[in-house]
């Protein structure tokens, strides 16, 4: 018998006593906390993101580019990678600020290698969903968010999210996400508490996380 057949047979034998049908538990219970209002949800999101020692800023659609530039200057970034599909108006003014923009795909269409990415200081991405109760941003790596490594290897991540993409609780986010895409949930910068439980920001992922919320 193959390992597969044998394991499945063992498991079938082990569950012979089960009399319920598959799916007998019925509909999944609602476990999401509910929102008082969209404004409260957004406040909670901003509060919880900041609580993780990420830098969070709210701005109007007209000020996105300025906020991004200011965040990059604060982080001391010189070389910044941007995903192909990022809103061009967000980063156009950067070209005059002495910050060098590095496209993920060079003219020959080849994506940056890990070693090349390691030479980059920061990344600017959009986000698919934000979660208020946990202060989380979720990337689904669509073209405005780029490949997974882009938001991982550089030391600063500037993430821009539209206010209408912030949901209240975790199950709300799960129901919006496409499971067939790779998903990265980010709650604050990289952190460890492995040494005497002292929280230290930044081991391998970006040590600086800026979240910019665009309000209509």
């Amino acid at each position, binding site marked *: 018998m193959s390992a597969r057949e044998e394991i499945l047979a*063992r498991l079938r034998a082990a569950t012979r006593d089960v009399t319920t049908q598959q799916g007998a538990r019925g509909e999944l219970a609602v476990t999401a*906390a509910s929102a008082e209002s969209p404004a409260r949800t957004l406040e909670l999101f901003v509060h919880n993101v900041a609580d993780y020692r990420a830098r969070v800023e709210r701005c109007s659609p007209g000020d996105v580019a300025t906020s991004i530039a200011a965040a990059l200057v604060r982080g001391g970034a010189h070389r910044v990678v941007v995903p192909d599909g990022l809103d061009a108006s967000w980063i156009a003014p950067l070209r005059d600020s002495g910050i060098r923009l590095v496209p993920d795909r060079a003219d020959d269409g080849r994506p940056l290698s890990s070693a090349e990415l390691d030479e980059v200081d920061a990344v600017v991405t959009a986000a698919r969903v934000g979660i208020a109760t946990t202060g989380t941003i979720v990337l689904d790596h669509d073209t405005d968010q780029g490949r997974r490594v882009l938001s991982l290897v550089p030391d600063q991540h500037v993430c821009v999210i539209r206010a209408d993409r912030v949901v209240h609780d975790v199950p709300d986010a799960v129901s919006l996400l496409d499971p067939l895409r790779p998903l990265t949930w980010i709650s604050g910068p990289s952190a460890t508490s492995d040494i005497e439980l002292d929280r*230290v920001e*930044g*081991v391998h992922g970006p040590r600086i996380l800026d979240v910019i919320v665009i309000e209509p």
Partner: protein
Amino acid sequence: MPSFQRAARDALANTQQRRNLAHATATIRAKRERVVGEVDRWEDLRVAGAEAKDEALHHLPDYLEQLEANLTARGATVHWARDADEANAIVLGLIRDKGADEVVKVKSMLTQEIELNERLEEAGIHAWETDLAELIVQLGHDRPSHILVPAIHRNRAEIREIFLREMGSVGRPAPKDLTDEPAKLAEAARLHLREKFLRAKVAISGANFAVADTGTLVVVESEGNGRMCLTLPETLISLVGVEKVLPTFADLGPMLQLLPRSSTGERMNPYTSMWTGVTPGDGPQEVHVVLVDNGRSRVLADEVGRQALRCIRCSACLNVCPVYERAGGHAYGSVYPGPIGAVLNPLLRGTGSEVDKSLPYASSLCGACFEACPVRIDIPQLLVHMRTQVVDEASGRSPEALGMKAAAWTFADHRRLETAQRASSLSGRLLGNRTVRSVPGLGAWTQARDVPTPPKETFRQWWRRTHEDES
């Protein structure tokens, strides 16, 4: 293998470890209580979590077949392993196919359970642990002592020593002027590991969840080492215990509310990665999933014991356990320490060895582990269930076996337990300090042994009285 009691006695003599542990468990306990308190429907969440796991476990073969079909449809290759040897052989074969002589690893309890690192080393393949705590344990030629913070028994000065002494022999050395500041130690680990991430061709991970209806695997972490392993190398091999299955993607909703709050006491851990097979142009282009039994079908066959397979390895039960807090993780003689280890190890391996026989006794049956468990595993009930098994096996229908069966009945239901505890502490108050010489109904058993005087209060009453200020 020493019994728990012997190992615990040695561990108790290690005052450094006891101090580290007491500090750590108290800190995590307080954080956990705070963030669990923020959630209004915590009890509903626990029930939803337990139901999701039970649904998967009760129909495990069907969900595994569904998982396999979805993984395969998304470009992953699925392997099945009956036991540790088979799992290790599959992984070794895959690494050899790639011509690699090293792999980077995300923290995984299952790979520790099957001793994958040791098998790979024997075959000449270096397996680099990339979680900071696992790195400390690996460089220190040591064993993990906690599910969540495996190097909890080490302090910063020891970690500095280990880094200075060992890093150079396996890669980029620690800076000469390394201090014992946690930020500096983390920085040294960052630099040491980054060269390994950037050159690794093959990575090995576990999974916190494997979703049957989509084929999605989930890894929950803090540092970003997981994301490095899951996205940089060309080939990713994930070892997944068959009990990790969740029926639907929507089940991740409650699970991701339960796990971080129970585990690190955070609203959400810094990073969670989800991937479904291969994504063209992003991340590893060759993805393997090894589904491992290694004793799990045996646990599933035990109708009482199978609830232990709900465990999502959050470690909340360790942090509230007064026995773990004093004995430390090594005394449990396995990768699964604490209350859950005390039941899971003998369930997985049987009660043949000295340590597995002793583990069901490594508890005060105070019930704190059940209250903390996000998926409502009734660990006290399981401990008594396993004690019955140990005693039955030793002597057939001995008086002890019958006594333990009565206890099993009592512990099987919390109301019965509390009534019995109240009754016994009441009789304790009536008896004063006199030793009980006989108990009606236990007859022969108490003629040979003195029954300790029942305490005047239950453990939980005592805990509340003496620890009021901490909660």
